[in-house]
């Protein structure tokens, strides 16, 4: 990533406070890419399939999704299912970023096709550190080209 490869980071997170903190910590880790924040699952799906309110929108670069599971309207599992079952959106990398660390939930997400599962630490210090590490990780991640 960095400046060479333009990637849009799609952050699907319903808590605006968390969203802002994640954004700030990513920036501190050196991420300069666009970060689009959507606060419910249905909006995320509409955005990706260019439906509903997002019919006319475009985004400049291929996306990478940071997905919370506790979302209103359509929860993270629903989003994951929809994305990974459609050929158009299947290749998009999805990083599940959520509070629960229950092994059954983890397994379920991987079965549904998520690419990476990260637990948001509940203590803020660890939280911000984890997001910064995520940022460093994202900076070396390659995503499929947008078509």
């Amino acid at each position, binding site marked *: 990533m960095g400046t060479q490869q333009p990637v849009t980071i799609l952050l699907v997170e319903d*808590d605006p*406070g*968390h969203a802002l*903190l994640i954004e*700030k910590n990513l920036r501190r880790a050196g991420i300069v890419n666009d970060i689009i924040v959507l606060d419910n699952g249905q909006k995320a799906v509409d955005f990706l399939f260019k439906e509903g309110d997002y019919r006319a929108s475009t985004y400049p670069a291929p996306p990478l999704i940071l997905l919370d599971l506790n979302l209103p309207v359509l929860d993270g599992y629903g989003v994951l299912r929809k994305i990974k079952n459609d050929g158009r959106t299947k290749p998009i990398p999805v990083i599940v970023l959520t*509070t*629960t660390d229950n092994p059954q939930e983890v397994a379920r997400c991987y079965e549904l096709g998520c690419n990476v599962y990260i637990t*948001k630490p*509940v*203590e*803020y*210090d660890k*939280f*911000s550190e984890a997001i910064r590490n995520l940022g460093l990780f994202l900076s070396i991640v390659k995503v499929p080209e947008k078509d």
Partner: protein
Amino acid sequence: MRIKDKLAVILGLIGVILAFWAGFVVWNARQITGQVQSVASAIDHLKTMGEVRSRFYNQMHMLVHYFAYHEEQGRTKYEALKQEVFPLLKSSPKGAPGKQEPGDIEKTYGQLTAVIERILSERDQGRTGQARAFPGDEIEPHMNAFLNAIENDIFQRTEDIEADYDRIVMRLGGIPTMGEASLRRVEGARLSIRYFLAVDALSRAMNRQVHELVDYLVSGSDRNLRELTAADSEATSALEKCRRIITTQIGLGVEGEEEQFLQMEDLEREYRGTMLLARDAVILKKGGMTGQAFALLEEKLKRRVDDRLLPRIDRIMDGSREEVAEVNRSMLNAVFVAAMAAMVVISLCALALFVASQRLIRALVDAIYRLKTGAGIVGSGDLDHRIEVRSRDELGELAESFNKMTASLKESDEELKSFIFSLSHDLRSPLVNLKGFSDELARSLEEIEALLRQEGGALTEDDSARLLALLRQEVPPMLGFIESASDRMGELINAVLKLSRASHMPLRPEMIDMTALVREALKPHEEQINAGRITVSVGALPQLLADRQAVELVVRNLLDNAIKYRAPERAGRVEITGERQTQDTVFHVRDNGRGIAPEDRQKAFDMFRRVGQRDVPGEGMGLAYARTLVRRHGGRIWCESEPGAGSTFSFAIPHPAPRQ
């Protein structure tokens, strides 16, 4: 008193009642036996009295003969008879005392005999005037007295027999297995006795008639004729009675009565025949032919009476007696059998009662025990435990209710658990924001400060100073409070989650070497101990069957408290002891620290509570965890303390219940 004992007492009482009943049956049987024997001897006595009367009449007859004909033969016979009568009187079985003076008969006989003796001796000495005449006037009253005494006695005995039979009927009711047949038998026996008495009355009337006839032949007095007629009616009514009784017996279906009927008719015929002779004798006498009358009396009539009438009467009376004896025998048999049967039934009932109640007791006690154990298990936190439902009665229903209650408790518990879990999770999310933006604020403030320093020249001195003061002195503490409050919230949420986990974690009991565990728990405090600021003494500790993790937690908590809350002015001393008691194993951790005020002792175990001075760090959760873990084992934890002197915290874990 245990349930078993209480039920044993009740059973005992029932057993006593049954024993009394059995005893009652036996007593009744024995009473009946006694009555029957009494009846038998009474009947014998009646027979004897009849004989005495007959002989007595003979005696008198001989006496009259003697006076009339001066024949020594008469006198000899009289004497002979006298020899017989008296012993007879003596030998007869005596009846119930108190009714009639038993000596009455003997007394009157004695008096009569004395008078006769006197007359005879006077006559012997030639002193009497009317040598030929029978001294009826002198003797008659005594004779009547004697005869009356006999009649009274017979009457008395008859009454006694009736009373005995009444009693027998009553007692038969006391033997539950005796039936209607026995009552019928008693009725039959009574009728036989009445028949016996009727025939005896006939015999008496017969004797009297002969006596009056002789008297008449001697004296020619009309009075004798009247007596004769009276005696005849007596005999006739006696015969009537006999006829009636036999008819009744035939009606009742008693066996052999047709034969008796014929016998009785035969007797009647004989009697009529004899009475014809008597009438002839009277006619002769009236016609002045006394000698011929006497001859008729002596040769025909007397002979007829002695050879034909009296034997028939005797036979009949014997027959009746045999009948009664037969009834008595069969009744005794029946009573014996019935009593035995009743005893067997009562014994079987008692046995059945005993066996049934044993089983009931065992089932009851077993059920109660399972309930008790179950309650203990559920009480210590195992909400999956269910009691087996073994019967469909109230106990089974109780077990089912218990299980339902436990299931409901488990549901609530699960609800609570998941509630706490999701709540604490939901509470953490905002915490992230609180802390996060606190942090961001701090960063922004730094930036602002930096900028101000750069561009500070544009502001006035005052404004600049004020800005700096705000940035450096006022705002940071505010942020600090937000941060520490968030930290505190985080701690509280963690503590609650930890406690919930402690309430639900599965327990794996194992045999724990407590001495080793305590030493392990003291390791973190090694430094302090070695530095001499605290001395710890560990007594001989018994082994404990419990979950290791839980016990470690409890012990560490208590030790930490003892060391943390020591009195700063003196060296700390901590003593750990334990002993195995009958119901549970108890451990004590005693310190000589600050102590706890009485009103605070219970509060110390509550969540988030700290009592006393807060100069030492801590969440206030240690004792709450300890209490939950101890409760999970079915035990208890408590504290004794003297403010200023020290505290002793103790916990007890019960021994596992033995399997039954």
